[in-house]
């Protein structure tokens, strides 16, 4: 059987890039639909930060546009959490809290990556994501400790997203190889810190942590939920229908 050469750096860049791209695309779906004008602009800003990060990461991994617009579901290495539907505003904030808390802790460590690009990237992105994490925490606290309806919606949003947390801390061969090469950060190092950080936000929000559910993993290997296909169809149709289109 032929073995396929695996370049852990390339795959690691792709995974981080796909996370940012898919979450950025998801958030951009709010544009024009935010609950209020100010929140609409906030969400668009978050989306733009992430699309900017995706551009840097995917261009480092190869031809960014080609990677973003001309790959199919199976080739995407994003985690399942980021492709989950927006739901209501509370579910979007639950997803953003759970992902960006992880991303922020990862980026803090990647600033010390031996890979120069990743270290410089992390140095820039960590400030953007610190803001995302703060904003998502603030909203989680306000909705959780708000009205009966906002607390119910916030709890439901967290409940939806909870089963996708374990995937964030999965270390497969690719990540292990990237850790061994001192390119990647080992997420298991901050798994405890992550748990207590989320618990602290939930406590302030007067919310119970959802019961642990059977984890769902596989996104990093291209096994995605049905939601990613719909997202990609919308995101990719223009460059695929008009391959030389410029704007």
């Amino acid at each position, binding site marked *: 059987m032929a073995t396929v050469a695996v370049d852990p750096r390339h795959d690691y860049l792709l995974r981080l890039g796909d996370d940012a791209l898919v979450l950025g695309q998801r958030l951009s779906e709010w544009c024009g639909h935010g*609950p*209020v*004008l*100010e*929140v609409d*602009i*906030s969400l668009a*800003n978050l989306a733009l930060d992430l699309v900017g990060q995706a551009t840097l990461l995917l261009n480092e991994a190869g031809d960014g546009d080609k990677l973003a617009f001309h790959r199919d579901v199976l080739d995407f290495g994003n985690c399942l959490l980021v492709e989950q539907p927006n739901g209501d505003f509370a579910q979007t904030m639950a997803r953003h809290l759970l992902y960006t808390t992880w991303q922020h802790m990862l980026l803090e460590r990647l600033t010390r990556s031996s890979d120069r690009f990743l270290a410089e990237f992390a140095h820039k992105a960590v400030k953007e994501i610190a803001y995302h994490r*703060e*904003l998502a925490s*603030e909203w989680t606290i*306000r909705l959780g400790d708000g009205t009966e309806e906002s607390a119910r919606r916030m709890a439901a949003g967290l409940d939806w997203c909870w089963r996708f947390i374990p995937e964030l801390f999965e270390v497969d061969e690719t990540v292990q190889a990237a850790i061994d090469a001192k390119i990647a950060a080992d997420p298991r190092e901050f798994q405890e810190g992550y748990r207590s950080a989320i618990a602290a936000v939930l406590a302030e929000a007067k919310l119970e942590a959802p019961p642990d559910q059977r984890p769902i993993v596989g996104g990093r290997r291209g096994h995605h939920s049905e939601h990613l296909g719909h997202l990609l169809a919308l995101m990719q149709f223009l460059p695929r229908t008009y391959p030389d289109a410029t704007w």
Partner: protein
Amino acid sequence: MSGDWPLWEVFVRAKGGLAHRHVGSVHAPDAELALRHARDTYTRRTEGVSLWVVPSATIVASDPDEAGELFEPAESKIYRHPTFYDIPDEVKHI
């Protein structure tokens, strides 16, 4: 929903040494989120290095009906502008 939220006036300092300038307003449920909304609405193109938000309700405004007595008397006092005076050529640095 934003109709339920109080209004906040937003002031931005463009760079160190300059005064904060009023740039507009945002709706927000509390001061902390008002700052974040102000950041996202008014500083996304590197317009500033510092932000103030002030509850609009705390601003005391002059009464437009009193504009005549408040502001018109100044119109006839052009000598209050430094350009009203001729400066002798011997005076430097003015």
